[in-house]
Each structure stands twice: as structure tokens, then as C-alpha cells.
């Protein structure tokens, strides 16, 4: 990746709280679920930024807030120089043509009553003034691009397998030639042998079309495979962010280390030799995150300071950010 490349997307101090009310009429209290709590990162033109973390870490909320599907509680999202959080809805709609999303569940994200042709041309209907024939040509071109037979336009989603449906979702996301594609766990519902097909397709499309990806997933080895840089999230915060090799070779945060050691290795000798860090307990509820460092309830090296003050998210080596008192 080109280091001097300009950031296509800047996420600055992004905060997203969801109000959760408790009690009825009497003693009514509103509490906040802190889904994303002060997250900042840049995404450069043409790179793939991986967001990893476990259930409830806020990775999907970050993705959705970038697209303004949720309005952030505070913070700025600057896409190509424009602050999206201040755009009126009609201008935001135009902006969305340049940023698209691929969803996790290829069964739920395609309307079962629409043909593949209708699904893929829907964004063209909204955002372009193409004629019917032009649209038809474009749909066929897109189907070819994602490796599906263009004669499939009149078929319905149920006639396709999971991997093929995910290809349809990709074709729909690419219909408007977007700059940024957010992939939200695009392969986690697919079989292993099909996962590789879809990941290879995404990489190929990136090379051909110069796309920028934000790749959200919980599978560390797959994120490492596809990303240029990756951010590890835990309970709404970024714990560590670095180039993928840096983060693999020199993980600094104890959570990253534990996560790395928990990834299954498909090699019996290596798997037996490595030392696993087994974390104790469960992820705390984002309704009631711990005081001090978010990770202190499970951290193997936590000291007194970790329960008192929150570690600063800082650059400890060039392009290597981490939030830990002991990194």
C-alpha cells in the first residue's frame, strides 16, 4: 500500500450509544448501551481495512454508522473530504451510491420475491437514468463480473446456493461503481471451500476496479489474509490497530495476543506446539462496561492502574496504535 495515499474515509472519535429504557412509568431510567465508544481510524484509497472482534464488540455498528444507517451520537465521519454526519438526507442518498455494503446472511439480504435481475438493477433504478436496455446490459455485465451465468437474470434467489447468493449480493453492491465497499462478515455463513471462492473473488475485484474495502469479521485468519491493516475491537473500542504483519508478528495488546492464540491452526504439529492463552470468563455487557480499561475483567496481566484509569489509545511504533498501559 502506498503510504502517502490520501485517506478516503476518516472516522474521528466516533461514538454510538443506543438508549435502553428500564422500568415502566415509575422509576423510569434510561441507560445507554455503549456500542461504539470513541473510535478513530483512517481508511486509505485502495486498501482493505479489517475490523475484527467478538460478538458485541461494535464492529458492525461502526460499519453501519459509517454508512449513516445509524446516526452517530457524536464524532465525525469524513468521506472524501465531506463530513457525512452533517449532510442532509437527500445529499447523503447521493453519497451512498459511492459506498456500498455486502451483508453477512445471503439468505436474508436478498428479497425472495424478486428475480436476480430486479435485485441487481434496484440501485440502478434509484441512482441512474439508464434506459431499460442499458440496465439489462449492465446487469449481465455484473453477473459475468462475479462469475455467474448472465442467463440467470430471471431466476429467484432460492434457486442459488449460499456462495452464489453472496455473489449476487456482491454484484448488487458493485452496480453503481462504488469507491468503498463495506463487507460485513460476508463469508461467515458459507462452507469452507466456498469461503475461499468468495474471498478470491473479492480480491480479484479489488485489483480490477480499485475498490477500497472495510472487511468486518470475527475470523482472524481470514481478516489477516485479506486486509492490509487491521483493527482489533473489544467492547466498543479499538484495542490495537496496525499493518497486518506487524499485528501478527508483534501483537502488543494482551487481548490481541489471546485472540491470536485462540485461532485454530490447521496443522497438528504447530497446533500442539503453540501456547494457548485461555481467557477467563465472558465478555462484559456493553450496558455496564468495567471501569478503567475495558479488558480488565479478563486480562491476564491486569494491574491496579487498569482498574482505575483508561489507557490512552496511542501510537507506540510507526503506524501501530494500541490502548494498553503495559504496551
Amino acid at each position, binding site marked *: 500500500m502506498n503510504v502517502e495515499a490520501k485517506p478516503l474515509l476518516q472516522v474521528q472519535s466516533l461514538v454510538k450509544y443506543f438508549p435502553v429504557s428500564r422500568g415502566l412509568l415509575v422509576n423510569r431510567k434510561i441507560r445507554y448501551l455503549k456500542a461504539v465508544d470513541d473510535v478513530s481510524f483512517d481508511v486509505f484509497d485502495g486498501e482493505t481495512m479489517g475490523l475484527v472482534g467478538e460478538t458485541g464488540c461494535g464492529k458492525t455498528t461502526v460499519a453501519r454508522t459509517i454508512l449513516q444507517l445509524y446516526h452517530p451520537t457524536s464524532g465525525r465521519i469524513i468521506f472524501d473530504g465531506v463530513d457525512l454526519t452533517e449532510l442532509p438526507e437527500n445529499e447523503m442518498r447521493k453519497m451512498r451510491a459511492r459506498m456500498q455494503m455486502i451483508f453477512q446472511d445471503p439468505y436474508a439480504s436478498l428479497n425472495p420475491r424478486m428475480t436476480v435481475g430486479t435485485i441487481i438493477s434496484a440501485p440502478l433504478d434509484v441512482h441512474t437514468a439508464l434506459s431499460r436496455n442499458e440496465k439489462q446490459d449492465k446487469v449481465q455485465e455484473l453477473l459475468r463480473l462475479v462469475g455467474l451465468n448472465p442467463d440467470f437474470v430471471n431466476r429467484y434467489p432460492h434457486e442459488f446456493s449460499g456462495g452464489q447468493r453472496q455473489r449476487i449480493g456482491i454484484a448488487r453492491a458493485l452496480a453503481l461503481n462504488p469507491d468503498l465497499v463495506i463487507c460485513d462478515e460476508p463469508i461467515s455463513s458459507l462452507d*469452507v471451500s466456498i469461503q475461499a471462492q468468495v474471498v478470491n473473488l473479492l480480491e480479484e475485484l479489488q485489483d480490477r476496479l480499485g475498490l477500497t474495502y472495510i472487511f468486518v469479521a470475527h475470523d482472524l485468519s481470514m481478516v489477516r489474509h485479506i486486509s492490509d491493516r487491521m483493527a482489533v475491537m473489544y467492547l466498543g473500542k479499538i484495542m490495537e490497530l496496525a499493518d497486518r504483519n506487524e499485528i501478527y508478528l508483534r501483537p502488543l495488546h494482551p487481548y490481541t495476543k489471546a485472540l491470536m492464540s485462540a485461532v485454530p491452526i490447521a496443522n497438528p504439529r504447530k497446533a500442539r506446539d503453540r501456547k494457548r492463552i485461555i481467557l477467563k470468563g465472558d465478555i462484559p455487557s456493553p450496558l455496564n462496561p468495567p471501569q478503567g480499561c475495558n479488558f480488565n475483567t479478563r486480562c491476564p496481566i491486569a494491574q491496579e492502574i487498569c482498574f482505575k484509569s483508561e489507557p490512552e489509545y496511542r501510537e507506540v511504533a510507526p503506524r501501530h496504535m494500541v490502548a494498553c498501559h503495559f504496551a
Partner: protein
Amino acid sequence: MKPLMELIDLTTRFHTQDGVVNAVNGISYPLEPGEILGIVGESGCGKSVHALSIMRLIQTPPGEIASGKVWFDGRDLLKLTEKEMRSVRGREIAMVFQDPLSSLNPVYTVGFQISEALILHKHMSKKQARERSIELLNLVGIPEPQKRYDAFPHQFSGGMRQRAMIAMALSCEPKLLIADEPTTALDVTIQAQIIDLVIKLQSEINMAVMWITHDLGIVAEMVRRINVMYAGFIVERGDVDDIYNKTCHPYTLGLLRSLPSIDESPGTKLVSIPGLPPDLISLPTGCPFFARCAFRVEQCRVERPELEPVDNAGHSVSCWRWREVLGANAA
């Protein structure tokens, strides 16, 4: 060693509107006492159906265990009456399922559901069962088991529910634990906890474990022997090191190569297996992997290979071209 369980030619089909689905197609293998066996394959390969067939939990109709024998501790489970089978389930063979939320009853406390098996199978009094259940909850690492005994499933996190399921499965000290993708719905750090727990418990009470999964990474570190399944057949079987290092079946090889390795160099392309698994309603006459195979020859299209031994160490494969596959793997 005399096997604890031996499957002989187990065949399970489902009669559907579209035709007969050949879910499990004549599989045979032994399982030794205390062995950890991994069953690996993708959706629809018959790995879960074969486990449910062993437990006789296939709904008939539409399902049907068409033929075969399941020898378990000296008798054929498929010949038992439903009443006899009920005393096998839970007491001799226990099962843990993928989704712990839907396998726990939401309207009973977790403790009650563990006690139930103890009262039923071990004829314990309520009080004894309660004490034993609390011990078990403690054993599987649930904090404050005294308090948690009276909690309902929705008050547990995903990892805790799966621990409770394991406590329930272990309550009667079964000879065999069948774990059907028990960690698929869990996060990696929680998955690591569960795997650690099962290995520890397995060696303590010397039960056999059958770990069903689609993830070749998980089984690499915990099992001794692996059955790789595809389209209802066992395509390769052997010790874990042989499966990974002396791979003989092109499907196993494809699965291994389609995984990104955590220490790969940048820019490495994944090798994917082209195409899709065959339709189980109309299986090809030859090798079921024929359409997707890079090693196929004419013989593979017309003649279905049988599972044949590769060496004397129990490594076997069903492929006409396994010598070539092994050679390509070494290269």
C-alpha cells in the same frame, strides 16, 4: 483394543417430495474406548445425520435408517426397542448440539434440566441430584454454581449455556460424548475455553468423544483420528498427522488449501475448490467428488471408489488416484 462402537454399512435416507435424499451412504468405522474422533465435512455431507442415526433420533418418516449396524458395547443399537434406546441416550451416549439456546428448555431452570437426567437415569433423590448438578456446574467452570443452579437459560451467556449443556451431557458419565459443532455459534476465545474443557474432562473420566465440525483447524489440535466426509461417504480416515501431512484425498487437500494460514506470506492466493457438492437426490454413479476434482480420470466417472487402506496404521482413502494426490501433496 476391542472397539467401543462399530458402525457397519450405516445408510440413512430421507424420502421427500423431490425424491430420495441419500444423506448417509454406507459408512463403516470403529471407535475405540476413550478415543477422540473428529468428523469433518461441510453442510450436507451427512456428518450430523450419521450422529443422529447412531442416537436413533432420525424422524421416521420422512427419514429412514435403511440398513447397517451400530454395534455399541456388544449390541446393535438399531435393533433395540424404543424403551431400551431411551436408557442408552444420555446414560451411555450423550450428545451436545450446536445451538445451546434452542437445545435448552427456556421455561425450566438450568439446574432442573441437569437434575432431570440424574433422577431419571441414576435414580437419585431430588436433593442428591441438586448437589451433583452443582458439582457438575462447578466442574465445567460456571462461576457461583450454587446461585446459577436456579437461573434460567436466558440468564446465561452463549458460552455458559454450552457449558451447561456439557454438564448435562456428562451428568451420567457416558461412554461416548457426541459433540455436534458445539463451538460454531461461539466466539473464538470462548471456543478455546470449551475445547480446553472437553479435552480436560475427557482425559479425567476416559470417555470417547466424537467431535463433529466443519473446521479442520479445530480438530487439528484436539483429536487423534479424523473421518473426512463428503456427500454421505467417508472419503478419508486416519490419524490426525496423516490426514494433514500425508493427505490422500483431493477433497481433504482442497479443504486444507482453502484455509488461510495464520503465518502465510502476503499476497498468497487461497486455493478454492471449484463448483458445489453434488445433489444428494441424484448422486453421480462414480466418485461423488468427480465434478470438482483436479485429479479425475475416466475411471472416476464410472466407478465409485471404496475406502481402501493406504498403510498399516489405519489411514484409508476412497480415491482411485490417491497415490498421485499423495505425490502432489509432498511436492
